[in-house]
């Protein structure tokens, strides 16, 4: 169970539990009468790739050779099951780097054009820190939320003892009775997006409450997309 440091509307803070809500598993591909496994396998050895074939056959136009024989197939290697692997980097010359490469961050605009290059900056997680997730002053009617933002993930916030039950039930009741959601965020003023692990996706987060007598649901809806269309020039450039 993961932890979240959260304030309520009055600014009182507590550490509570949360879980991600998942969709039901759908059908998988298989056979009715026997088990099958999905796995990766070696489809071509390095000599069977384009550059290797050009080098070996001495001609860019090696289609005829592929038809007449199977020069791209290395019978000793192809079909080998591939298990776990480790990522490595190759230099432009194709040599394995034995030290981590320098990394540069490239910013591309909506039109796909490069706008900036900069040194990457690590963004730490910020949901269970000394500074709690705070309510912003912004509350949005529930019907408006679904017309303004695309909710891609939902977390359910839960109590773990009597005190946190009262705390979360009160929060859910306040929001449900107003038919509103509260925009919550990280940082001193609660205006920063939530990041759940280092360099993870920054999310805008909306707290929704539902109450049925003593029962409650407190849901944290996460969005990284507004419900709007790209500007026509950007849409044209990127499609």
């Amino acid at each position, binding site marked *: 169970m993961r932890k979240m440091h959260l304030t309520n509307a009055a600014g009182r803070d507590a550490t509570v539990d949360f879980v991600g809500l998942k969709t039901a598993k759908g059908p998988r591909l298989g056979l009715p009468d026997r088990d099958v496994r999905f796995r990766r396998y070696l*489809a071509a050895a390095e000599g069977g790739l384009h550059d290797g074939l050009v080098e070996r056959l001495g001609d860019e136009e090696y289609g005829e050779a592929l038809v007449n024989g199977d020069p791209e197939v290395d019978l000793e290697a192809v079909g080998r099951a*591939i298990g776990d692997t480790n*990522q490595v980097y*190759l230099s432009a010359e194709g040599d394995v780097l034995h030290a981590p490469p320098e990394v540069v961050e490239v910013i591309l605009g909506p039109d796909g054009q490069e706008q900036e290059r900069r040194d990457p900056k690590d963004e730490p997680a910020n949901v269970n820190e000394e500074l709690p997730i705070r309510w912003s002053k912004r509350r949005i009617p529930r019907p408006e939320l679904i017309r303004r933002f*695309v909710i891609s993930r939902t977390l359910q916030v839960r*109590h773990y003892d009597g005190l946190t039950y009262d705390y979360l039930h009160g929060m859910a009741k306040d929001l449900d009775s107003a038919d509103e959601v509260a925009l919550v965020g990280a940082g001193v003023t609660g205006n920063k997006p939530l990041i759940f692990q280092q360099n993870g996706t920054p999310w805008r987060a909306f707290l929704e409450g539902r109450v049925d007598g003593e029962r*409650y649901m407190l849901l944290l809806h996460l969005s990284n997309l507004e419900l709007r269309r790209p500007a026509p020039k950007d849409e044209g450039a990127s499609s």
Partner: protein
Amino acid sequence: MARTIMVERDGTVSSFAFKKVDRSKLYGRKRRLPLDPDGETCTRAALTDDGSLILLQGMVAQGYFDDGGCWIPHGDLVGVDADGEVVPERPSTLGRPVPLEGPFEPRVLLDVRVQSVYALEAEEIDDALVADLSAGRIFRLPFSYRSDYKQDDAFLVAGMDDGLYALVGQSVEPEWCSPQELPVIEDADDDLDDELDFEMF
């Protein structure tokens, strides 16, 4: 001819051209490029666990195999549910009218994990549906982009910019929490580690 999303409500069919909306078209995107000591862009590759093979792009394929190691052609595979029963393949919902259900409360859509968003352009639309959508009501239709063994839900919504959208995804089921019982602790593998970056406001 491009396929359309077609819905039928009270015997009237409405149809919409559609175009996918994604983050990069709205906000752009960030990429991290690894550079070699000469400042040239590196290539990513994979090293097998035993260190015997470097796998370059184009060297690896994937597929289904039986216990004997025999490859199963994709055309032989069928949809199988959790009990091992074969499920029928459902045709694409595009280009043919599907029933429109609703209107629904906003919380029904809030319980959906949206995976795709399409901006819609009405080619033919029922006036009553326009009025309902403009009033903020939401409707649901079954959605499969292509024939598949599973089917998603799509929700027809008018955005605050007055554009029409189809939000496609699958439902989640939050549970009521009550004071008498502490919540069941589940594995919190929250699938939040994708690499999207975001600066919305």
